[in-house]
C-alpha cells in the first residue's frame, strides 16, 4: 500500500467518526470537551456555527453520529452525543453578544427564501452577516417549518424553537408570514438575485381505499396535517379509539400525541414485521413504554363506515418477505382482521408537490416529482433557483436540511460573486500538538469505563396528560460531565513521523487495543490479515507510514484506537504525537 497522506484533510476527518457521520460535520469531540470543562456557552457556539439549532437538535436530531461513535465499537453503547448537545443549550449563558454582526451597509444582493424551515433559516443565518437582503416567505404564522408544525411539544417545547429561530430572524430577515408562494415566476420577476426553495415536503401521503369517500376525510386524516393542527391549537382532543397506520417516526409522534389528547385505545398498525420498522429504536421504545401496542403484518384494505360514521378498519394479514432484488413482498395469508376505531391517522410517508412552480422556468423535474438538483451545489436547472431540505431530495431530517442550507448559501454567495459553483472551497483545518510535558496532554487522555447514562424522564402518568409537557428532562451537570468523559477524543489524532522512529516496539507493547504493527508492506488485503489483530472492519482505514530504517512500515488500524495517547507517551523519540485536528466546513463568506 502507498504511505498514507495525512495532509489530505479527509484522512483525519474520517477518524473522527461522529463528525464524519454528521451531515453538517459538527466538531463533536471539541464541544464535548468544552462541556466537560464547564464552558457551556462556548460549546453552544461551536454547535451554533455548525448546526444552527443546538437546542432543537439536542432533542430531536436523528443523530447519525451515535451509531458511528467509536465507543460503540470498543464498548457497547455510543456516547450520548445528542443529549450532551442539549446540555450546552440548557446551561449556556446569554449568547446575543456572540452572534455575528449584521452590516448596516448591504451588499446589494437580494435573496428570497421559500418556506421558513431549518434549511431556509440556515441560508439566512449564513447570508445575513455578509450583507444580503433576505425575504422569507412562509405559509404558516410562525417560522420553524417541520420543527414547529410536526414535532410534538412533548418532544420539543415551543420556547426552544422560538429562541433559536429568533436568533436568525432578529438578524433583520424580512419575513412574510401567512404568505403562501403561489408562483415562482412572480417571485423571480420581483428582482431577486437568487431564490432558495426550502418549502419542505408539505403533504403526507393519502390512502384512498374503499370507504374513504363515505367518510369524506373527516376521521381519516393525514398524520402530519393532524399533528400541525394540534401544534397550532386547532385540535385539542382525540376520540376514544385511534389507529395509526405506518411505522416511521411520524407514526410514533401521532400515536403518542393521540394518547395525550385523551384517546383511550391507541394502536399502531404496520404492514411489515416489527423488526423492519423505519422508526428510530428509541422512538419505538418510548412508544411501547407508554403502553401503545404496535401490531405487525397488517395491510389495510378498507375503511369500515356505518351510517356515514367511521367505525373500524379492515386489514388483511400478510407474510412479509424481501425478494432477491431487495424489494419488499407482501403475500396475503387470506386472513382478515377488523380493528375498531373512530379516527385513522395516516403516517405512511410524505409526498412532494410543487404546483406553484411554473413549467417554463427551466426547472426540470424527475419522475417522482422532485426538481433535478445538483447534490453538491443544490442548484436546480435554473441557475438562480436553489433547493434544500426536504424540498430538494425528499424527506430526510433536520440536520441534513441544515447541511444543505449551508451548502446552498455558499453556492448562492459564489454565484453572485461570479465563481464556479463546482470548485468548492477546502475545509478549514488545524492540527496542533497536545503535548504539555513529557507525559502530559492537554486533553483527558485516560479512558473511563463508565457506561452510557440514561436521560431522566418525567413521570409517565403525568406526561401523558399534556401534549406540551416535555418528556425528557435532559442531563444534570454531574451526569453531563460523566457522559462527556466517555468521549474518546477521536479528534486528537495519532500523528506519526517515520523519520524519528527507532522501531523500539514501545508503542506496540503499550497499545491497549493492539492496533499498531511493524510489518513488511504489502497489498491491503494481505496487510489487513497479518496485523497483530487482523483488521476486518473495512469501513475503517489503515494508516501506512513511509518506509522505516529496517525496511518495514508502521501500520495502524484506525478501527479500535482509543486515542489514549499511550503510544505517544511511551515513544522515546516523539515519533508518535497526539495532535488535535479541527475540521470546519467552509461556509459562505469564509472561502
Amino acid at each position: 500500500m502507498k504511505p498514507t497522506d495525512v495532509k489530505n484533510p479527509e484522512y483525519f476527518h474520517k477518524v473522527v467518526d461522529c463528525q464524519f457521520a454528521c451531515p453538517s460535520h459538527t466538531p463533536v469531540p471539541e464541544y464535548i470537551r468544552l462541556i466537560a470543562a464547564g464552558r457551556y456557552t462556548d460549546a453552544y457556539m461551536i454547535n451554533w456555527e455548525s448546526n444552527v439549532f443546538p437546542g432543537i437538535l439536542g432533542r430531536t436530531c436523528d443523530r447519525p453520529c451515535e451509531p458511528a461513535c467509536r465507543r460503540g465499537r470498543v464498548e457497547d453503547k455510543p456516547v450520548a452525543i445528542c443529549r450532551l448537545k442539549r446540555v450546552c443549550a440548557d446551561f449556556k449563558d446569554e449568547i446575543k453578544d456572540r452572534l455575528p454582526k449584521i452590516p448596516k451597509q448591504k451588499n446589494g444582493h437580494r435573496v428570497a427564501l421559500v418556506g421558513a424551515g431549518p434549511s431556509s433559516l440556515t441560508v439566512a443565518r449564513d447570508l445575513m452577516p455578509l450583507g444580503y437582503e433576505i425575504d422569507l416567505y412562509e405559509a404558516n404564522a410562525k417560522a420553524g417549518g417541520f420543527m414547529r408544525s410536526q414535532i410534538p411539544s412533548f418532544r420539543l417545547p415551543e420556547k426552544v424553537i422560538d429562541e433559536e429561530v429568533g436568533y436568525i430572524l432578529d438578524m433583520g430577515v424580512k419575513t412574510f408570514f401567512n404568505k403562501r408562494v403561489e408562483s415562482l415566476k412572480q417571485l423571480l420577476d420581483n428582482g431577486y438575485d437568487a431564490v432558495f426553495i426550502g418549502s419542505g415536503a408539505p403533504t403526507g401521503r393519502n390512502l384512498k381505499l374503499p370507504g374513504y369517500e363515505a367518510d369524506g376525510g373527516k376521521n381519516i386524516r393525514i398524520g402530519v396535517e393532524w399533528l400541525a393542527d394540534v401544534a397550532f391549537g386547532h385540535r385539542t382532543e382525540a376520540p376514544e379509539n385511534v389507529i395509526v397506520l405506518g411505522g416511521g417516526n411520524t407514526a410514533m409522534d401521532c400515536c403518542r400525541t393521540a394518547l395525550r389528547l385523551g384517546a383511550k385505545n391507541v394502536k399502531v398498525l404496520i404492514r411489515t414485521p416489527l423488526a423492519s420498522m423505519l422508526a428510530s429504536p428509541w422512538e419505538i421504545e418510548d412508544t411501547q413504554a407508554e403502553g401503545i401496542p404496535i401490531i405487525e403484518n397488517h395491510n389495510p384494505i378498507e375503511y369500515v363506515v356505518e351510517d356515514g360514521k367511521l367505525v373500524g378498519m379492515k386489514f388483511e394479514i400478510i407474510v412479509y418477505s424481501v425478494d432477491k432484488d431487495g424489494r419488499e413482498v407482501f403475500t396475503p395469508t387470506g386472513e382478515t382482521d377488523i380493528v375498531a376505531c373512530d379516527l385513522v391517522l395516516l403516517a405512511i410517508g410524505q409526498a412532494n408537490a410543487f404546483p406553484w412552480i411554473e413549467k417554463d422556468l427551466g426547472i426540470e423535474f424527475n419522475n417522482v416529482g422532485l426538481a433535478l438538483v445538483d447534490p453538491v451545489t443544490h442548484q436546480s436547472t435554473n441557475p438562480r433557483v436553489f433547493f434544500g431540505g426536504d424540498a430538494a431530495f425528499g424527506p430526510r431530517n433536520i440536520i441534513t436540511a441544515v447541511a444543505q442550507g449551508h451548502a446552498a448559501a455558499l453556492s448562492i454567495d459564489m454565484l453572485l460573486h461570479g465563481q464556479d459553483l463546482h470548485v468548492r472551497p477546502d475545509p478549514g483545518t488545524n492540527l496542533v500538538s497536545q503535548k504539555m510535558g513529557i507525559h502530559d496532554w492537554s486533553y483527558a487522555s485516560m479512558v473511563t469505563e463508565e457506561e452510557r447514562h440514561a436521560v431522566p424522564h418525567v413521570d409517565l402518568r403525568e406526561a401523558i396528560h399534556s401534549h406540551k409537557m416535555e418528556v425528557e428532562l435532559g442531563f444534570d451537570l454531574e451526569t453531563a460531565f460523566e457522559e462527556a468523559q466517555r468521549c474518546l477524543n477521536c479528534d486528537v489524532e495519532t500523528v506519526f513521523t517515520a523519520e524519528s522512529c527507532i522501531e523500539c516496539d514501545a508503542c506496540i507493547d503499550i497499545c491497549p487495543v493492539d492496533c499498531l504493527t511493524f510489518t513488511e508492506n504489502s497489498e491491503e488485503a494481505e496487510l489487513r490479515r497479518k496485523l497483530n489483530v487482523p483488521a476486518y472492519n473495512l469501513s475503517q482505514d489503515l494508516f501506512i507510514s513511509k518506509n522505516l530504517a529496517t525496511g518495514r512500515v508502521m501500520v495502524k488500524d484506525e478501527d479500535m484506537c482509543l486515542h489514549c495517547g499511550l503510544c505517544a507517551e511511551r515513544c522515546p523519540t516523539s515519533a508518535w504525537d497526539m495532535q488535535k485536528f479541527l475540521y470546519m466546513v467552509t461556509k459562505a463568506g469564509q472561502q
Partner: protein
Amino acid sequence: MSYAIPGFRHPNLPKNDLGFTTKDYEGAVSTLCAGCGHDSISAAIIEACFELSIPPHHVAKLSGIGCSSKTPTYFLGNSHGFNSVHGRMPAVATGANMANRDLIYIGVSGDGDTASIGMGQFVHSVRRNVDMVYICENNGVYGLTKGQDSATTDIGSKSKKGEPNAMEPIDLCSVALQLGATFVAQSFSGDKHQLVPLIQAAIAHRGFAFINVISPCVTFNNTPGSTKSYDFIRQHMASSNTVDFVPHAEEITTEYAPGTSTSVTMHDGSAINLQKMDPNLDIHSRRSALALMQEYKAQDKVLTGLLFVDEDSQDIHTTMNTTKTPLRALSEKELCPGSAALEKINQSLR
C-alpha cells in the same frame, strides 16, 4: 503521565486454550523510560505464556535489583512474584524451586545484577542446573545509577557520556556454556519473532535455561558509539538459526529444505524446530557454540538464536533425588516418619 492502561481491549483479541486473552497475562503499566528494550522483553514473556496457555498462577517470577528487575511488575500480574536483594535472585529461585518443583520459575535479571554483584550466585545456579528460565536483560550499562559502564560493556563501546569502555566484557553465554548450562540462547529485545519461541522453548526445557537478551537502554546507551544500541544490534545481528517452538499437542507442519533443519524433542513432548542459518553450528555441541560465538565476535557480529541445548538434561531435583511432591503438600506422616525410622537410620551409621 498515565499510571494505568485503559481497560478496553480489541474485541477480536484471540483467546488461548484457557479462554484467556493477553490481557490476563499483563501487569501494571511500566515506569521504565519510554522506549526501553526491557518493556519489549516483558511483552515477549506475556506473549509466550499466553500462547502456551500457562495458567498464570502456575508461574513464579523472580528478580533482583535494577531496571530489569523492576520488570516483573509489568508482566504476569496474576502470577507469584519475589523481588529479592541485589544479585540474589538465583539463591531465592533455587530455594523456591527446591520447595515447590511444580511451578514454572522465570528469573529476570540484568547485566549488573548478573555479571557484577550477582556473578557468584549466577554461576552456581548454572552448575546446579536449577529448573528455571533465566533471562538476562543485558543493556551494557548501569541505567538505574545514571549510566556507568557495566561488566558486559564491550571494549571501545561509548555510552552517553562519550568515554570508550576500556575493560574486557564478560560474555554471559560463554560463561554459562563453560559452566555446563543445558540451554543457552541469545536474542534481541527488538526481535519478538525470535525471542517469543526461545522463551517458550526455555520454559519447556527441564533444567537451567539461560537467555541473554540484548536490550538497548534508550536513555544512556542508545548512542552512535554504543555496541548495544538499537541501530548497532540491527546492523550487526546474525542468527544461528530460526526457532519455531511447537507445543506437543500441535502437529508439526512447517517444512524446511532437507539438511537445513533440526527438530529437538523436549522431555515434555514439545519440539523446537530449528532452521540452520549457519551450517557450522551443532546445537548439541558446547565446543561448536563457543567457537562460533568467538568467530562472530571477531567479525564484529552478534550471534543470536538457540546456541546450545541438552534435551536430556537432569535438573537439580533428579541429581539430588528429592521428593517429587512439593514440600507444602507433604503431611506430618511423611515429614516425621517416627522413632522406628530414626532408629533404623542411626543403626545404619554405626
